[in-house]
């Protein structure tokens, strides 16, 4: 029944730009490593401008403009040589001036697109616009009062608005991961979702499959992890389908996500419709870019994830899946690059594949279990390169390799000493393995006969038995050679 519906999703992403100072004043926009401006003493990080003292005026941070342009260039947006800051008027205690300085009808970046990994081929998602604005402060709600902290007020944001061109929670998730990796690669956003560096609002609607008009949308606000956003969208899609199926109508509203219960909840609709009364901010004149400036910024773009993905496929013959996973994560691709660089030039497709397998498998698991960033762990590219080398040359088995990796993760000890200490070297000595294999053949005569008769599948049975008998140290490739030889 549900398959007669399709979901349509558009995303609005707010990225805090990692400039030194705020967008319109010289107050710091970020603290030292690992500290958010929101964490320090409330209102320590404020001045007349960002507290909206009477008479204070905004002056635009040049770096903020450059970061927005970089984001636009990386998403193939039309860069607007003339853009305008407008005031969005509304009252809220965390909004010091009673208006937010934002961009309205003339944003700094117009239409563009972002390619996300898809099932068989990458999919292009349209970007409507990217505009600059200032962040608000933070209200902390207590019993009987609220406390307003303006440390974050005036931190620069870009809002990246997508077209409603995603049709599932997974696509939305892929878009967000791709965008996240992009802004982090560009070095314009720290990307820490817990701290709100990268925030997302999702507009979700459903419609009968084949319909062209959009259904009424609900907006899911402020979800702070990829996984939760996907779950929230998935929940919301199902909820809306239920509403429609049971004869109801979806209400246009803002909904919050409760991650404990995995539900979206209507946030009490505002008692009045918003009327933001946008008009050009007379304290700021239009922002003018020059083609020279934009070209200079284009020249400064780092290699972008989609370029990286293409290069990985070309240079290392990685599958599009592997190349996509790597290029979408700055930490994985950085680690990959540093590891593969340790191999001598030549055909690197085998070590590349092996590196990717370790990175996306065991290392990702270890890193997420321990909540330690790969770059901060004890495992170095040198470790990984050594491990790949001994694995490919058959010195250790694949299960042995896993064991080594866990050991290195915990201790940081060199790979060869771990192999030595834990006795993980494979037995690759024909003389030592032959009697073991012979014994297995002797005790399993019928299987031996069937294998000999051509039932190749049974080879794994003999290899498995040999591994067991050798305590996991037998080199499986050698074992199968010996079985063939003895049955010949």
């Amino acid at each position: 029944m549900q398959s007669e519906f399709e979901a349509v999703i558009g995303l609005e992403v707010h990225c805090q730009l990692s400039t030194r100072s705020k967008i319109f004043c010289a107050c710091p926009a970020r603290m030292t490593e690992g500290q958010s401006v929101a964490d320090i003493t409330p209102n320590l990080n404020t001045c007349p401008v960002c507290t909206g003292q009477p008479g204070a005026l905004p002056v635009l941070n040049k770096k903020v403009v450059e970061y927005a342009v970089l984001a636009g260039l990386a998403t193939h947006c039309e860069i607007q040589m003339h853009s305008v800051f407008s005031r969005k008027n509304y009252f809220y205690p965390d909004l010091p001036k009673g208006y937010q300085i934002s961009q309205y009808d003339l944003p700094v970046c117009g239409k563009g697109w972002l390619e996300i990994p898809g099932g068989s081929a990458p999919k292009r998602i349209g970007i409507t616009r990217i505009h600059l604005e200032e962040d608000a402060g933070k209200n902390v709600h207590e019993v009987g009062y609220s406390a307003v902290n303006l440390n974050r007020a005036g931190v620069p944001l870009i809002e990246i608005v997508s077209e409603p061109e995603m049709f599932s929670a997974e696509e939305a998730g892929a878009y967000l991961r791709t965008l996240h990796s992009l802004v982090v690669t560009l070095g314009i956003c720290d990307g820490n979702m817990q701290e709100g560096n990268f925030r997302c609002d999702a507009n979700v609607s459903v419609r009968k499959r084949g319909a062209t008009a959009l259904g009424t949308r609900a907006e899911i606000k402020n979800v702070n992890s990829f996984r939760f956003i996907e779950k929230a969208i998935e929940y919301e899609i199902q909820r809306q389908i239920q509403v429609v199926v049971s004869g109801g109508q979806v209400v246009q509203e803002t909904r919050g996500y409760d991650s404990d219960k995995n539900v979206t909840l209507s946030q009490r609709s505002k008692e009045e419709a918003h009327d933001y009364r946008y008009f050009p901010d007379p304290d700021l004149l239009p922002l003018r870019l020059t083609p020279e400036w934009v070209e200079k910024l284009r020249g400064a773009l780092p290699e972008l994830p989609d370029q990286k993905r293409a290069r990985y496929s070309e240079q290392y013959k990685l599958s599009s899946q592997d190349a996509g996973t790597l290029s979408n994560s700055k930490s994985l691709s950085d680690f990959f690059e540093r590891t593969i660089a340790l191999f001598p030039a030549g055909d690197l497709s085998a070590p590349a594949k092996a590196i990717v397998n370790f990175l996306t498998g065991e290392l990702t698991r270890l890193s997420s279990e321990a909540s330690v960033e790969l770059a901060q762990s004890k495992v170095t590219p040198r470790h990984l390169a050594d491990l790949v080398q001994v694995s490919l040359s058959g010195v250790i088995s694949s299960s042995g390799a896993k064991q080594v990796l866990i050991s290195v993760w915990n201790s940081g000890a060199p790979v060869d000493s771990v192999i030595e200490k834990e006795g993980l070297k494979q037995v690759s000595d024909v003389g030592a393995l032959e009697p073991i294999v012979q014994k297995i053949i002797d005790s399993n005569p019928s299987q031996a006969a069937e294998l000999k008769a051509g039932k190749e599948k049974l080879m794994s049975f003999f290899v498995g038995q040999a591994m067991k008998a050798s305590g996991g140290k037998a080199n499986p490739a050698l074992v199968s050679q010996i079985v063939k030889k003895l049955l010949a």
Partner: protein
Amino acid sequence: MKKIQSIAEVHDGFDNKAFTPLELAQEYLGRIHASQLNAFLTVSEEKAIFQAKKATAELMKWGRVPREAQPLFGIPFGLKDNLVTQGLRTTCGSRILENYVPPYSATVVERVEKAGAVILGKLNMDEFAMGSSNENSAFGPVQHPTHPGYVPGGSSGGSASAVAAGLCVAALGSDTGGSIRLPASFCGVTGVKPTYGRVSRYGLVAFASSLDQIGPLTNSVRDSATVLDVISGADPMDSTSIQGVSEKYVAGLSAPMDWSKVRIGIPKEYFVSGVQAEVAASMQDAIKWFEKQGAQCVSVTLPHTSYAVSVYYVVAVSEASSNLARFDGVRFGVRPEGLSSSQGDLLSFYKQVRTRFGDEVKRRILLGTFALSSGYSDQYYQKACQVRRLIQQDFTAAFEKVDFILGPVAPTTAFKLGEKSQDPLQMYLNDIFTIPANLAGLPALSVPCGKDSAGLPIGLHLAGRLYSDSELIRIADAFERRA
């Protein structure tokens, strides 16, 4: 001690040891305390005495006024109360800021202090600079300096009245639609609204940001030039301040005038019925004088003048409705006591705070909110900005033929307190001749040019091209010295 002194007279007095900066400051503070004009809202006696003592000690050391480094050395100075002063109460003539002690100072305040001015205090004004008569101050109207019962003009009425009455030698005001020039005209002093962007607005509590400009009110054009030399010039804190080298106004005064090159435009739209006969006659005298010097006076047309008041009111109140949103009682200003026991309703908190705005301010916030609101903004705000372009183009066309535009500052001389306060529209129409310069950003000034039969001063209004402040001041100075 002479009641009205120019900056040069004060400096000569210091050099000749006729009085010290401290003695002078004490004299002026004494006058302020004795005055009934209600021109000062806050007297910064301690600060003034401190600055004056310092100046006195410096004078002793140097033996002469350091005119180059400190053009306002020891000058008793007043500031309109919408210029923020760190540590010194700044009310904007409003109950909502009755207790506001700013944590920073306006750029112009820092500049006049650095130039040696002795700050006597903060001058009364229409609340948030919204008014033409000074009757909208929450702290009572300012009296006319020579004619009790008459208004001094607004909104910089405190500044004009104080300068005219010798309560300070020079003052700063702000001009959004005529708020420097109108009171200067009514009180018989000089008032200059520089080209928009010549003077930093950082620390000027905004009324309408695209129109507001700070300028001097003084007893002579030369004194205004001295003050302008100090306060004008690029400010990295104001995006709308003009970057680059600023002009030298006083230096420009010493060059001789070449009148044959001066062309003055007389807009026919400014000489219509409704202008008081004595005012019109005074304009004719001024025109004759300029012609006698050899200037060409020609008729010009500014065809969209009749729309100026409408455009102005829509633009000014729209911007004001947004500029005044920050007065919410959260971070500064007066707020209802006993917040946590006030049954915690944010909406009623806002309303209780903002009810302290006066009626004229509320009226303008309402009108501005309406003019920007969805469904009406095309008809009002956007349309007004389109017509604003036509008014600007009127001037562009006129300035192809002439260098200056001459007219009265206001249709009438000062009127009586209470005469127009019940009729907002009549009050708005006072500003008909001053508003266009704000809409187009042009430099304009008021210089005394006579008196009516009641002895009330008449002001001559001169406006110039964008950035022609220096030339404008030169001809005004020549006119002022005509006698």
